[in-house]
């Protein structure tokens, strides 16, 4: 099973440019056409399962709008918890 991850897109920064959407290797992102940011853009969001936390979306984002989280593999998680 691949690593699991998720992202948070900041509504403050996102300008809906779709660079992340197009770069995401898992194709799990899309623009939220229902919603406008305070600056009037449709923000990007995680719109399907399958995010691996690979951070590629963050690497291409010109607005540093994305924070990426990744599952801590069980073994390390235990170590960390210890």
């Amino acid at each position, binding site marked *: 099973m691949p690593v*699991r*991850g*998720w*992202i*948070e897109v*900041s509504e*403050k*920064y996102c*300008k*809906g*440019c*779709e*660079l992340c959407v*197009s*770069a995401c290797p898992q194709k799990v992102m899309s623009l939220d056409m229902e919603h406008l940011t305070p*600056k009037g*853009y449709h923000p990007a969001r*995680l719109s399907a399962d399958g995010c691996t*936390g690979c*951070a*590629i979306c*963050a*690497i*291409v*984002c*010109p*607005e*540093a*709008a*994305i*924070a*990426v*989280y*990744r*599952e*801590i593999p069980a073994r390390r*998680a235990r170590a*960390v*918890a210890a």
Partner: protein
Amino acid sequence: MATNFPAELVYQRPESFTEALTHYCPGCTHGVAHRLVAEVLDEMGLREKTIGVAPVGCAVFAYNYFDCDFVEAAHGRAPAMATGIKRMLPDRVVFTYQGDGDLASIGMAEIVHAAARGENISVIFINNANYGMTGGQMAPTTLPGQKTTSSPYGRDVEQMGFPIRTAEMLATLDGAGYVVRRSLHDPKNIRQAKKAIHLAFEAQVRGLGFSMVELLSTCPTNWGLTPVEALHWVEERMIPFFPLGDYKIAPALEELRIR
């Protein structure tokens, strides 16, 4: 998106950024270049000893986005201004961030001489094949045949001259310690760009002379393309003319490996 597994933060907005939202057009890779610089400052722990020099161009407000000291230069003169700062504060890290109109057109004398002097500064050079800020006029980097608002019939090299390959040209100078070209059009290239920026600052910290990273960058607004199309334009049109590569690497840097 709620999760129920233990997780760690693998990427977040760099600390060397302020909270300001950029004024760049959506999808413009100026933002990516900024982010990479901020990440490198974070990783190298340089924020508090760095002084940036902003250009006149779309990046004129760069100083709003970096959480370090900054000055704003006259059009094209950022290398001279950076020189003045560096000479007064040799132990600080000084970098300029310049567009292709700024650096390769009006500022040509200043960049050549900063390089020739081996001035110990780092230059982030954004090549987007036009003058973004003033509405898309021809730049020294505008491709042959490319239409801009001041080459409305396409750049006629007979009349308007040939594009300048700046990195190649500056690499001929003895004072240049690190001169490379990278691109911002996809994740792999962005990663390499970041390594290059890291090496450029590394060169400065080690006193190896002038360092410059030329970055192929998009200008969706003036190219009349969507941000994603613009990335393809970089790949398909710009890279063939402006080959990516290392044009000058001081021997002391060659050993260095950046993860």
